[in-house]
């Protein structure tokens, strides 16, 4: 559709682009990204015939751009500008109708039925038909943007260039516009080339990305390849992190703000922050901790400052325990959005906790344990599911910086330690009579300060793994013994 071959050029006496080559296929949605001054707009001006290339050639449908007259070019290629000047108050329809200019030949050609159909259709597609008699300058920024999109579409182009189309749009219109463009490329074979500032939007919608750096192509490839952490950091000269999008298989680039110079580095999470009562155990961290947990609220991954293990009666039975827990937290002036909350029927005075330290790494473990409904995981099929408050709740606070990998390994290590306690304490599954591995509703929390020592792994024989397995083993044993002492009395 479009092929740019060894193009060099820019403004008089100042070449912006150097030996640029790329191809765009029909129906493709190509995103052009790059820092300010990398030549994004210049390449647009060349492709749309505003600037001439100093060297090289641009072929549009196998013909050089220079061989097109302005009108011929406008029938194949349309541009949605970032801003359009608004010198006089034209109505929406008058503005959109101008897009038909290139399809009129000679001085006397009148407005045809086809012109009217096209204009009405594009106004429908862009959702501005109901404004057609309004003045463009009376519309909001987003509506105005859609008027000019309709104008460009009224040219019935085969290729559409968009210069930061989402610039003045609020979130819902950004999504709407890009969804629409994506749909058109699929359904009508429209080719779209768009400049993006927002790498995440570009990554979400584009078939391929062209990363420009100082007027040269850094990489032209699939979004996942182009949006590489190190590459973007180098080209944009800033720190970003790449994460997978939570719901669609696309990358997201996250900015990392400069760390503020608050001196919390010496702080470690230990029993100073623990607050115990018969009703609940609360740990309030002075700063948010990165967590991975299976709590009633705040489960999954996130950043939380408050950790609550709440005692409920054995007969606690609530159809919506999550909702009830949220109400409970709010009722006790605890912000649920910053809290990981768990429940237990175990008496909280039986809690066991311990800080253990080794090689500059420390781990603070808090365990409440009860084995009233102990289960052998290998024979759990013989149990009937009835949700009850968890009976072994394990909290692991790590004073260090963990990778995602270390989080998962920490869970494994803690679980293995717990299973070992069950064996050593000879806890039996009441239904099967075999050795139990835990209870049916155990919960776990791994929370890391993400300050201090970098801890990439937490397997059982790593430094962290050793601390966790030792801590969890001792605390669970202690908690279990306290529980048994009470039960046997």
């Amino acid at each position: 559709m479009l092929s740019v071959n060894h193009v060099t050029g820019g403004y008089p006496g100042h070449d912006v682009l150097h030996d640029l080559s790329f191809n765009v296929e029909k129906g493709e949605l190509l995103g052009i990204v790059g820092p300010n001054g990398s030549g994004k707009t210049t390449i647009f001006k060349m492709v749309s015939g505003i600037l001439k290339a100093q060297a090289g050639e641009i072929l549009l449908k196998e013909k050089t751009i220079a061989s097109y007259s302005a009108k011929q070019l406008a029938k194949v290629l349309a541009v949605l500008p970032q801003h359009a000047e608004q010198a006089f108050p034209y109505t929406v329809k008058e503005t959109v109708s101008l897009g038909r200019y290139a399809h009129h030949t000679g001085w006397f050609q009148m407005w045809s039925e086809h012109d009217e159909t096209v204009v009405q259709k594009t106004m429908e597609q862009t959702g501005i038909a109901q404004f057609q008699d309004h003045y463009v300058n009376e519309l909001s920024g987003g509506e105005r943007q859609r008027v000019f999109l309709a104008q460009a579409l009224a040219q019935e182009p085969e290729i559409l260039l968009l210069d930061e189309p989402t610039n003045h749009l609020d979130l819902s219109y950004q999504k709407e516009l890009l969804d629409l463009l994506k749909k058109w490329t699929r359904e009508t074979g429209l080719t779209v080339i768009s400049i993006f500032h927002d790498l995440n939007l570009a990554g979400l919608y584009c078939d391929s990305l062209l990363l420009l750096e100082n007027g040269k192509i850094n990489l032209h490839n699939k979004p996942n390849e182009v949006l590489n952490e190190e590459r973007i950091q180098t080209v944009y000269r800033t720190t970003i992190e790449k994460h997978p999008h939570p719901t669609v298989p696309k990358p997201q680039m996250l900015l990392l703000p400069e760390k503020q110079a608050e001196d919390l580095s010496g702080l470690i999470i230990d029993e100073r922050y623990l607050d115990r009562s018969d009703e609940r155990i609360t740990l309030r961290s002075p700063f948010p901790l990165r967590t991975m947990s299976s709590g009633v609220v705040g489960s999954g991954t996130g950043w939380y400052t408050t950790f609550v293990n709440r005692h409920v009666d054995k007969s606690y039975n609530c159809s919506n325990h999550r909702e009830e827990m949220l109400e409970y937290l709010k009722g006790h002036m605890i912000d649920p959005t910053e809290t990981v909350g768990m429940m237990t029927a175990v008496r909280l005075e039986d809690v066991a906790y311990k800080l253990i330290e080794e090689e500059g790494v420390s781990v603070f473990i808090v365990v409440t344990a009860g084995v009233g409904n102990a289960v052998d995981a290998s024979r759990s099929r013989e149990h009937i599911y009835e949700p009850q408050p968890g009976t072994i709740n394990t909290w692991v606070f790590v004073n260090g910086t963990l990778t995602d990998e270390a989080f998962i390994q920490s869970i494994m290590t803690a679980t293995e330690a717990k299973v070992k306690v069950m064996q050593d304490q000879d806890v039996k599954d009441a239904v099967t009579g075999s050795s139990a591995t835990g209870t049916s509703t155990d919960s776990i929390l791994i929370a890391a300060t993400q300050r201090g020592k970098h801890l990439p792994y937490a397997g059982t024989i790593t430094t962290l793994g050793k601390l966790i397995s030792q801590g969890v083993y001792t605390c669970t044993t202690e908690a279990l013994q306290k529980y048994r002492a009470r039960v046997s009395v």
Partner: protein
Amino acid sequence: MQKRFTRMFLRNNRLIAYVIATALLIAAMLLGISIGTVSVPVLTILQLIGAEVLHLPGMGTIDSMYTTIVMDIRLPRVILAGLVGASLAIAGAAFQGLLRNPLADPYVLGVSSGASVGAVLVLFFNLSLPFIGIFTLPIMSIAASILTIFLVLFFARQIERSMRVETIILTGIVFSSFLGSLLSLMIALTGEELRQIIGWLLGSVSMRGWEYIAIIIPFFIIGTAILLFSSKELNAMSFGEERAQHIGVNVARRKLWILIGGSILTGAAVAVSGTIGFVGLVIPHLTRLLWGPDHRHLLPLSILLGAAFLIVADLISRTIISPTELPIGVITSLIGAPVFAIILIRRRKERRG
């Protein structure tokens, strides 16, 4: 909503717009011919035009005094005033569209200063070229205005090859100032021709006769044709030159044509009547307020309104303190400015309301 409806009604009924504008022009012409020291009845005017212009038979007998007054004095005067008003109004509309600036007028590029220098040179040196005699002044003036526009464009191109409108405006301003000081120099050095020069500069359409109409008409036809054939492009260019290029307009070439067309009209108008202010600024503006900015209609409607306006202004200038004639440029501004101010204020209120 009511107001919007009214406005939309006005804009959507282009036929009504043309009918109103044409009726205004005809009324202005009839008034202009009829009123004066000797009043000519409208019926007589119609009879006269039927007999003398259209050569219709059976128009009855007409007093020969009326024939002389109408055919030799008032009709050419009214037609000249109409042509000048029309030229300035359409040139103004085109320049405003091209420069995307509703404050632009036909004189913004220095064409009028060029034409004035040409004319004042003739007056100052009492020039009379062979063969053309009394037409030395208008011919020199047109030649000077055309020379000016090409100089302005040439220098603008030297400054910047792409000739953005900002560059053209700046170059025009430089030329205007330079030529303006040449004018001042000649005025300062002149003796007995002072009144003649000032009178010419203030503008007048009196005592010009059919010959001046013959001078302006070819330029009027060519200039108007160029502009009318550029009306779609003017619409596109009011969204910016880059946008126009993307829509499919050959901006560089079209811009040159519009500048040349507008300058021919302005130059010819200044040459036959001096620098008459305000028409080229306000008439397009008024037309746009009434019937919208679409140049396909703005240009022809500006022609009609501009012609009618200048005919009425001329009528007032020669009758208000008769027998003394006021310079027409004074009248255009004296009536034009307050009327324009009232329209602007009402329009503002309407927008707020």
